[in-house]
């Protein structure tokens, strides 16, 4: 039975737009890029990690930064949050109560949400590398 990483990626002429499409898919839905590349274990791992971090951060009422931040930290936070793809847009829809700044849990939640974006970006880079044939 073929293992998760035994699929050949070299020696095949591919459309140069495919790695970009895979990267975009990996960004918008965590794990989708790996799913399209038939890397099932990695797809599940990245999805669970990103979803777990994002949903935990929302449950802790962390801050979801917007693109209209007034300071550089807010702008960096926005970029980090945006990395989680669909979870960012869903959180912007469902975050009606705002961040909980009265307790430490709100701070933890903010870090969880930012980490979910960074983890998903790691997945995007991994999927892009596999699609280009640079990685197994």
């Amino acid at each position: 039975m073929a293992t998760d990483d035994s699929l050949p990626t070299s020696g095949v002429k591919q459309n140069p737009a495919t790695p970009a499409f895979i990267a975009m898919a990996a960004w918008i839905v965590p794990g989708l890029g790996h799913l399209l590349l038939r890397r099932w274990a990695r797809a599940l791992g990245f999805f669970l990690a990103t979803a777990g971090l994002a949903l935990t951060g929302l449950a802790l009422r962390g801050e979801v930064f917007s693109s209209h931040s007034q300071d550089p930290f807010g702008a960096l936070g926005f970029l980090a949050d945006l990395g989680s793809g669909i979870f960012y847009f869903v959180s912007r829809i469902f975050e009606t109560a705002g961040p909980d700044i009265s307790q430490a849990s709100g701070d933890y939640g903010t870090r969880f949400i930012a980490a979910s974006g960074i983890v998903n970006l790691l997945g995007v880079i991994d999927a892009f590398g596999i699609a280009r044939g640079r990685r197994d």
Partner: protein
Amino acid sequence: MVFFALLVSVAFACAGSRSIQTRIKYALWCFLLFLAIGVGIAWLMYPLSR
């Protein structure tokens, strides 16, 4: 901290080319290091809080 370390370790293990067994070992190693470094830094910062 434990939950955060667990999820990030899973993500780290998913990246890169390794066998399943190596990935599990790597995830476990990352998880333990996260906890050890987190607790270590907390103890280092403890005198500053007093």
